């Protein structure tokens, strides 16, 4: 028994006396005592605070815990004899002696949730559709119809998305060119047909590797940046501010990005293609005994204009995927800073997935038409 806490029990009621401060030990014991008394069926428990010199947050928290512990077992716990600072403190904290109300959330049944998902998906599709239409309108028809284009913003975006990405795009394609040449050289050596390394590299890069690698690099670089920027603007209510001023978000923010990536990505893809072929050539020259002339002759003979246009055309679609996915994920954010990170992740994953799916569709199309 603690000397700061004593108890008196009669048939139906019990009184606990507190004297001295409520240390953690005393507090814990107070809660235990109340629980013990209440679980024996006592309906009335009083805690006498007459001799309590003062109350601070922590000791008050113990009182609250004790009152609630008793109440959970059906006993009525009352605090008696409080005066001065102790009484004021308890008065100030009165609301805390009640357990917090359980917030109610609206919840659908199973079918409702299923339907809700479907409606959500449909809504998202509609929003994306509108976004595409808006972006196209404000990028092409708007400016032609004299409704203006933000040239400065467009140039800044091209600088950022296009020029700024040249280094990394070329480097990655160049290295990949080296690797692909190495791989195919090993395979083709078995048939003594290393000569075909040159054609493999050039066709691979023209049709698939350059557009895809460039698309992925740009989506990780620019797509993520678009989402992060728009999401941050959304979170800090800048987007609302734009709309509130009667400015068009599509014209103001999306059109410059849309046009810029539509210009940048195909050019980057061509650069990536050239770098990839150069990477292949470096390996061919260093370890397969190619000369520039022999590599060049083989390359020219293998590649057709159609291969290059195929990659080029695809890059336009990839560009659209990146910018639309980026803008959409940025603008759909609502909430706080952690949503920005989540939106960016979602955008990049969606980008890569959609780029691969689109590529597959193109591959199928070309396969059956040629």
């Amino acid at each position, binding site marked *: 028994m603690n000397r700061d806490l004593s108890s008196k029990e009669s048939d139906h009621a019990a009184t606990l006396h507190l004297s001295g401060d409520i240390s953690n030990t005393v507090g814990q014991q107070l809660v235990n005592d109340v629980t013990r008394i209440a679980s024996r069926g006592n309906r009335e428990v009083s805690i006498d605070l007459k001799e309590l010199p003062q109350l601070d947050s922590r000791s008050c928290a113990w009182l609250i815990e004790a009152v609630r512990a008793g109440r959970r077992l059906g006993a009525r716990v009352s605090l008696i004899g409080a005066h001065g600072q102790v009484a004021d403190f308890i008065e100030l904290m009165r609301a805390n002696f009640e357990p*917090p109300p359980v917030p109610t959330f609206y919840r659908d049944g199973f079918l409702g949730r299923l339907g809700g998902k479907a409606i959500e998906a449909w809504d998202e599709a509609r929003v994306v559709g509108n976004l595409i239409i808006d972006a196209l309108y404000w990028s092409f028809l708007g400016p032609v119809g004299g409704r203006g284009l933000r040239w400065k913003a467009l140039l800044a975006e091209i600088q950022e998305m296009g020029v700024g990405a040249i280094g990394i795009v070329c480097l990655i394609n160049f290295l990949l060119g080296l690797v692909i040449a190495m791989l195919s050289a090993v395979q083709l050596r078995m048939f003594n047909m290393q000569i075909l390394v040159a054609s493999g590299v050039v066709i691979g890069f023209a049709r698939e590797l350059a557009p895809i690698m460039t698309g992925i690099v740009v989506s990780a670089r620019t797509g993520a940046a678009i989402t992060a920027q728009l999401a941050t603007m959304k979170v800090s209510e800048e987007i609302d501010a734009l709309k509130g001023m009667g400015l068009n978000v599509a014209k103001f923010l999306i059109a410059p990005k849309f046009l810029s990536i539509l210009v940048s990505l195909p050019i980057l893809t061509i650069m990536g293609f050239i770098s990839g072929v150069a990477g292949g050539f470096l390996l061919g020259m260093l370890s397969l005994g190619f000369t520039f002339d022999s590599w060049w002759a083989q390359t020219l003979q293998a590649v057709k204009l159609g291969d290059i246009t195929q990659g080029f055309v695809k890059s336009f679609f990839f560009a659209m995927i990146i910018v639309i996915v980026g803008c959409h994920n940025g603008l759909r954010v609502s909430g706080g800073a952690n949503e920005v990170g989540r939106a960016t992740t979602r955008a990049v994953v969606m980008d890569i997935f959609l780029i691969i799916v689109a590529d597959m569709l193109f591959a199928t199309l070309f396969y059956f038409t040629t």
Partner: protein
Amino acid sequence: MEKRPIIEVRDLVAGYGREVVLRGISFDVYPGEILVVLGASGCGKSTLLKLLVGLLKPMSGSIRYWGKDIKKMDEDELDHLLHKIGLSFQDGALFNSMTVGENVALPMVEYGNMDRELIPILARMKLSLVGLTNSGYLMPEALSGGMKKRVGFARAIAIDPTIVFFDEPSAGLDPITAAGLDKIILDIRRLMELTMVVVTHELDSIRSVADRVIMLDWGEIIFDGTLAQIETADHPRVRQFFERIPDKTIL
């Protein structure tokens, strides 16, 4: 007041990069008092608070807590000091990924000397002090600016600090909430023996709580005295501030 000051600031010069914002200020903070630092926006009030809690290093001058210069404190001492200080930021600075209750509970959880079962109760008690008893489950994004600020205040007093710094408590609050703020501040001071430094650009909102007022202008202290004294002070800038006369250069 014959007590020894808790905080002594001497010849404090500070700023950002090479730009000097505070040009040599000195003042004391006494235990149990509510000191109001008054000044136009941009005069360096938030900067002063950042210095007082060690978020910004002064260019010269000293800040002493209980007689000890914070420049000379080692990491443990500084840590210990920070546990005695609560800071409530201008816009709340809540962690968006946590609920309101978790925001307030965070310092208690992190300081680790608190009984686990008490933490939710204590967090709710602090919230009830700022009138948000049952809002603990909300996410910060669901709060208005004024509510965020009040949660920020609840978080600042979470571990029952000795000193609380309060940046612009009333800016952006509706008049009713701002008036309620006086009561909150007085209640807390009376029941928890806090020392408070309140930074604001409008004295009106916390007129009834100020024990002492310091006025900052252009990085210098142009007034230091009681509320009654500042009302009758004849320093032209002080008068301009109280009579709401705009700067000629702005007109």
